[in-house]
């Protein structure tokens, strides 16, 4: 088990290094760099920036150095000093830029995750136990709809309904009267009243797919001989279901937990752009658009790290949950 853990950890570091490099290549792919954005903006205002000033900018940001040197400067800063670099467009350190927003992203993602679990599991289990009942059909239908509606579409429709019929500003996190107020109970309640919409919007797609996964897994297990055996020996039905097939059907779920986190963050990005929430999503979008390479690079690095760590945690959780896997690991 320990050897397995060590191997996984080593592999994780290699993966992260590779991801950071690929990210950097991708950001550097487009012709031009941050200075071309500056030049384009200046031209849009009808000004021209002298050649010498551009060269000065390039030197200031280290853009005149070869690619590998730029990469090394960035990654060694990240690893050795925890310094994610400087955002060109914001003229601030990336760490402080992201730090301001990442908390809200995490709150939103975790709240959505809890929402997804608390809705999807009971419905999925019910659907499988009462296969082809009206309730099952309704759940399947809603699940299909949930998977088909793009998140931003749902966000737009919710905002439209809120705007049109409740006269409420659904976007943002606070009502105007609380925006600058100090933290108090009223502000907290106001935050919650604004936050539930994005939570639902971000969670819907995940809920839909999790219902389907749970249902399919449980249906696979329900007709296996061990269920018949347990029933034959007279175990109460609910105890039987929870102890054996439901538990078995949750195994594949653990292996998807790792993917769920980045998925939620992706969903959160688009929804936050639409609803103008001050999370990390809109920041990433603006960074991508203006070739703010350290900003985007740090984002992808952080998100990848979350994914890789999430995958590992989910594998460990799976081993903890499923004795068969544990057995295989201790043997191999």
């Amino acid at each position, binding site marked *: 088990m320990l050897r397995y853990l060590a191997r996984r950890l080593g592999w994780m570091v290699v*993966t992260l290094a*590779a*991801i950071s490099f*690929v*990210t950097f290549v*991708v*950001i550097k*792919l*487009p*012709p031009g760099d941050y200075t071309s954005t500056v030049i384009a903006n200046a031209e849009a205002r009808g000004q021209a920036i002298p050649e010498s000033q551009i060269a000065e900018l390039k030197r200031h940001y280290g853009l005149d150095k070869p690619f590998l040197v730029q990469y090394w400067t960035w990654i060694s800063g990240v690893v050795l000093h925890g310094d994610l670099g400087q955002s060109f467009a914001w003229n601030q350190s990336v760490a402080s830029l992201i730090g301001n927003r990442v908390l809200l992203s995490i709150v939103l993602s975790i709240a959505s995750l809890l929402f997804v679990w608390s809705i999807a599991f009971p419905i999925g289990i019910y659907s499988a136990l009462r296969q082809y009942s009206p309730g099952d059909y309704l759940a399947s239908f809603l699940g*299909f*709809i949930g*998977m*088909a*509606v*793009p*998140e*931003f*579409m749902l966000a*737009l*429709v919710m*905002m*439209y309904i809120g*705007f*049109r019929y409740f006269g409420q500003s*659904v*976007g943002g996190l606070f009502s105007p009267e609380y925006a600058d107020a100090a933290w108090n109970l009223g502000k907290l309640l106001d935050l919650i009243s604004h936050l539930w919409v994005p939570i639902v919007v971000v969670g819907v797609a995940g809920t839909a797919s999790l219902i389907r996964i749970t249902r399919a897994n449980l249906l696979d297990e329900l007709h296996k001989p061990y269920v018949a055996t347990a029933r034959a020996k007279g175990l109460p039905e609910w105890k039987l279901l929870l102890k054996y097939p439901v538990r078995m059907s949750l195994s594949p779920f653990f292996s998807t937990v790792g993917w769920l986190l*980045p998925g939620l*963050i*992706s969903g959160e*990005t*688009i929804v936050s*752009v*639409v609803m103008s929430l001050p999370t990390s999503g809109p920041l*990433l*979008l603006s960074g*991508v*658009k203006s*070739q703010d390479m350290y900003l*985007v690079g740090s*984002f*992808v690095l952080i*998100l*990848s790290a*979350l*994914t*890789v760590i999430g*995958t590992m945690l989910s594998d460990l959780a799976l081993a903890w949950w499923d004795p068969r896997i544990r057995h295989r690991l201790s043997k191999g």
Partner: protein
Amino acid sequence: MVQTIQAQPAPPPQAEPEVVKSLRDHGALPQWRLMWRQFRRHKLALIGLIVLVPIYFIAVFSGFFAPAASDSAHTALPYAPPQRVHFSSEHGLFVYGYSSTRDQETFEQTFTVDKNKIVDVGLFVRGDEYKILGLIPSDIHLIGPVKAGDPFFLLGADQSGRDLLSRLIHGARVSLSIGLVGVLAASVLGLLIGGISGYLGGPIDNAIQRVIEFIMSIPTLPLWMALSASLPDSWGPLTRYFAITVILSLIGWTGLARDVRGRFLSLREEDFVMAARLDGVSRGGIIFGHMVPSFASHIIATVSMAVPTMILGETSLSFLGLGLQAPAVSWGVLLEGAQNIRAVATAPWLLAPGLAVVVVVLAMNFVGDGLRDAADPYK
């Protein structure tokens, strides 16, 4: 696995025993017939297919079905509301024109239906020029104003006074094809790499699996965003379209490759593969004649589920302004105009392309579900 039995040449009819003959007449349908039977039992899948076929037909002949070209604009009529088609014995089919008033305080333009202005509407009318399938020039439209250039907005107009219905129909071409092209590219990659990995095994398999794990661990959306943002602005709509397709399929192939590999690994040990090998069938013959057919239907079903995902991907990217860009039209590009909640509040019909996305993706998911059930008709 049963296919391989069917794949063998049938004995000549005169030598056929009675049992085989009766089996052929009653029980032994070819596999595709069995699959179609199973598919038909899935009512939702059938409905999905019935919805999709006409939509694709309209998209192929978009020039004919759309009342106007995608870029023809009535600049005086931004956000004009949808018109209703009326019928009277005097005018035949007609819609009412608009009269606009401008609010003196907010300078907001509002439109009211002007019952004095009547726009005659006809079927098979002449209007904007287009090319059927990009080849044959024509200017006949299924429905449109009799006098070319009159306002005719069945779904309302966008911010530049362009007919939303026409743009929706033109946009369908890109939105509907990008999923198919992307999935095709992803399947070729997935089949090839997964096949190599599964059939050869050993260190090559190990290396390929590590690469796949690596690609899968990169978060999708930021990667899509970074890649699409790195497309040069100078690229034309067509190049951009293909670039976006490649970006979308770059991630899609990994899941398929793993699936194919798994199938190869389990099939390699099957008796019929061993039999073929002992018979002296070549390696290519075993792979393409025996192994691929026995999991092809599964692959098709898996792949069909990826099409809607790619459509949603394109829509999201274009919506964020990173995918296709105007003057190209796709549903995502159209929805970009609905990003602002104020615009949506004054012109809720701007969300129509979103509705189209939902309908198409829903129908595709149903069909994919049916295909998955039908993939193994012997269950």
